[in-house]
C-alpha cells in the first residue's frame, strides 16, 4: 500500500504536466517557438499532432534478408489530450522471394512533454507496440514487441545573427529499445535491440522568413534533410548477429501549408543492412490544419 504522501506527489506531478501542456505552444504539428520540424521518415519527429501519413511507399532492391521489398503503409495519429496522441500504423508488403502479406499492426502512445520556445527545443516520449499475430501469417511475429521511445528536436534559430546562415539548421534525434515479448520463438532467439538515429535538416522556409527572402515559391518550401538510422542487438543476441545495422537517408521535404511530401533515398551502411540504394516517399497530412474543429483536435480538452 502506497502512503498518502506518495499519491499526493503523483497527483501533483500529473497536475503540473497538464498545466504545462496548456501553457506550451507546441502542440500542433511539431512546432516549438519559431521552428516547424517536418515529419520525417527514418525516425519520428518530436511532436504530437493529428496527422495522417498516406501513403508511405518504400522500395528496397535487397533488404537485410536479401529479398527485394516494396511496402505501402498508412499511419494515423489521433490526439487524445493536447500533446498526447495514439498512432496506428499498418500496411501491405511484398517481398521477392517471400510474396505478399500484411504487416502486423503497430501502435504508439506518445506524449510531447516539453517545448522551450526560445531555444526551439522540444521532446516527446512514447511507447510503441508491435502487435504479434496481427497481419498476414508470413509477416507477423508470434509475440508483441514493446519499444519505449524518446524523440527530441533542436532548432538553431537561437544562434547569434552573426551566424545567420546556420540558424535554419535543426537536429532531431530518437533513441529507443525494442523488447520482444518472448525470448525465444520457433527455436530462434529474439534479441532486444537498441535503436537510435538522428536527422540533420536545413529549413528553407525558416531561411525565407528569418534570414533573407527566397524569390521562388517552390524553393522556399523545401527542407533538405539527411536521416541516419541505426539498430544494434544488445541482449539475448544470437551467435553471429551482434552487428550494427542502419541506413543513411538523404532527401527533400516539400512543406505546403497543411501537408508535406518527403522523398529520401535509402543507403544501407553495410551488407547486413541491405544492398543497393532504395527509396522511400511519403505524403503527410496535418489534420489539425485541415479540420481544426473536429478531426484535427484532441478528443478531450481540445477547446481553443
Amino acid at each position: 500500500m502506497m502512503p498518502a504522501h506518495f499519491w499526493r506527489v503523483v497527483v501533483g506531478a500529473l497536475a503540473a504536466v497538464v498545466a504545462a501542456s496548456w501553457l506550451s505552444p507546441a502542440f500542433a504539428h511539431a512546432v516549438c517557438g519559431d521552428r516547424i520540424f517536418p515529419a520525417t521518415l527514418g525516425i519520428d519527429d518530436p511532436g504530437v499532432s493529428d496527422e495522417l501519413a498516406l501513403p508511405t511507399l518504400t522500395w528496397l532492391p535487397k533488404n537485410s534478408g536479401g529479398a527485394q521489398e516494396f511496402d505501402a503503409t498508412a499511419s494515423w495519429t489521433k490526439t487524445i489530450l493536447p500533446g498526447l496522441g495514439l498512432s496506428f500504423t499498418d500496411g501491405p508488403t511484398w517481398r521477392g522471394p517471400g510474396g505478399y502479406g500484411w504487416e502486423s499492426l503497430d501502435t504508439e502512445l506518445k506524449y510531447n512533454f516539453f517545448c522551450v520556445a526560445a531555444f526551439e527545443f522540444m521532446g516527446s516520449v512514447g511507447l510503441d507496440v508491435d502487435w504479434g499475430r496481427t497481419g498476414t501469417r508470413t509477416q507477423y511475429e508470434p509475440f508483441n514487441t514493446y519499444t519505449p521511445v524518446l524523440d527530441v528536436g533542436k532548432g538553431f534559430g537561437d544562434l547569434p545573427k552573426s551566424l545567420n546562415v546556420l540558424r535554419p539548421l535543426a537536429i532531431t534525434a530518437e533513441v529507443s529499445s525494442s523488447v520482444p515479448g518472448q525470448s525465444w520463438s520457433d527455436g530462434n532467439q529474439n534479441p532486444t535491440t537498441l535503436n537510435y538515429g538522428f536527422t540533420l535538416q536545413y529549413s528553407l522556409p525558416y531561411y525565407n522568413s528569418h534570414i533573407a527572402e527566397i524569390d521562388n515559391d517552390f524553393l522556399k518550401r523545401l527542407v533538405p534533410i539527411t536521416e541516419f538510422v541505426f539498430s544494434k542487438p544488445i541482449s539475448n543476441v544470437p551467435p553471429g548477429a551482434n552487428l550494427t545495422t542502419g541506413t543513411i537517408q538523404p532527401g527533400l521535404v516539400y512543406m505546403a501549408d497543411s501537408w508535406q511530401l518527403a522523398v529520401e533515398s535509402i543507403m544501407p551502411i553495410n551488407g547486413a543492412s541491405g544492398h543497393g540504394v532504395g527509396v522511400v516517399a511519403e505524403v503527410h497530412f496535418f489534420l489539425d490544419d485541415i479540420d481544426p474543429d473536429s478531426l484535427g483536435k484532441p478528443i478531450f480538452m481540445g477547446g481553443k
Partner: protein
Amino acid sequence: MRDRLASAIVVSLAFALAASAAYAHAQLEKATPAVGAAVAAPSEIRLKFSEGVEPRFSHIALTAADGAAVPLGPAKVEPGDPTTLVAPIAKTLAPGVYTVRWSAVSVDTHHTRGDFDFTVKP
C-alpha cells in the same frame, strides 16, 4: 495489393483536395521591407502570410539596432486580404539595422511567430 494501393492513392488525393482549402499555421511568405534586405526608409511594415490572420491577436514590433523600440501604428489586415498584416511606422527611420518581431494567430487560432532584420540605407 494493387487495388489497395490504388485506394490509398485515391484517399490521399481526396485529402490533398481537402487540404488545399484548409486553414493552417500562418507562415510568413513575404515581407515589405523584404527579409534581410537593404532599403530606403519604409513607411510601413507589411507582412504577407500563408493564411488569414486575426489582427486582434497578431502583433508586429520594430526595434532599432540598439534595442530601442520604434513606435508603430496598430497592425491591421489589408482590406479584402486577411493574409496581409500592415503596421504603419510612426516616424522616418534613420539609417541602420532594424529587427521586426511578429506573432500571428491564424483564423483557426494556430499561433506562429518569427523575426527578421532589414537595413535602412543612408
